[in-house]
């Protein structure tokens, strides 16, 4: 084990360049989701009695398709950032932490992609 202090070991290596990246994009996605989720919640309320055809027609409308894609991307990005903080706060065994973070990223990407593809399929695939 080195006798050098932690600060001594990193000095001179340059900055990490994106130290505020996580914090900033959590806020950016949060602000976007304030508007997107209010729209999404109102839409679901109005769709409470909708038939299969109604829902398909709604998803297929160009404005709705676009807003849904934005909602999906921002939601899963925000979710990934949020769950990452929770894991980093409570899991301190390095290998378990790394594995869990990778699993969360993978799950968010897979679920997000499934949502995006479903919306695009309804909008363009018929």
């Amino acid at each position, binding site marked *: 084990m080195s006798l050098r202090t932690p600060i001594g070991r990193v000095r001179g290596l340059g900055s990490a360049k994106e130290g505020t990246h996580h914090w900033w994009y959590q*806020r950016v996605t*949060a*602000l976007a*989701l*304030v508007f997107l*989720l*209010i729209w999404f*919640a109102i839409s*679901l*309320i*109005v769709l*409470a*009695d909708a038939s*299969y055809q109604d*829902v*398909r027609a709604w*998803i297929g409308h160009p404005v709705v398709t676009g807003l849904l894609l934005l909602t999906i991307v921002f*939601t*899963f990005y925000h*979710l990934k950032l*949020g*769950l990452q903080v*929770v894991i980093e706060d409570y899991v301190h065994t390095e290998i378990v932490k790394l594995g869990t973070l990778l699993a969360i990223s993978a799950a968010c990407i897979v*679920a997000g992609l*499934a*949502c995006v*593809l*479903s*919306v695009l*399929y*309804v909008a363009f*695939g018929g």
Partner: protein
Amino acid sequence: MSAQERPLSPHLQVYRWQITMTLSILHRITGVGLGLGTLLMTYWLIAAAAGPGWFADAQEFVGSIIGRIILFGFTVSLMLHLCNGIRHLFWDAGKGFDLKNARASSVAVLIGTIVLSVGAWAIAYAVRGDL
């Protein structure tokens, strides 16, 4: 580093209960809960893409007692995370972070959550026209 187990902060047991700490942990719990809820949204969208049979199954599940309980929990979580998230954004802008305002906005978030959740369901039932 010594391998000896030392006490770690925060020492939750030494604090008197405060409403701000309740909102803090609720924000995190509802955030994780909403994460699980996105799986339901994913299932619903896939079902809408997969066809009428799949969609009917999804609607039946969402409309069942268990489905409605999950959906109501999802609604409450969403409204609380949304209201408290807006509160966090004000804090990030440097507004309302003093003790008095932080406590007042805690209460506002809880009231907002109840009003928005109950309101959303009342309107949804009015749209459906049944129970």
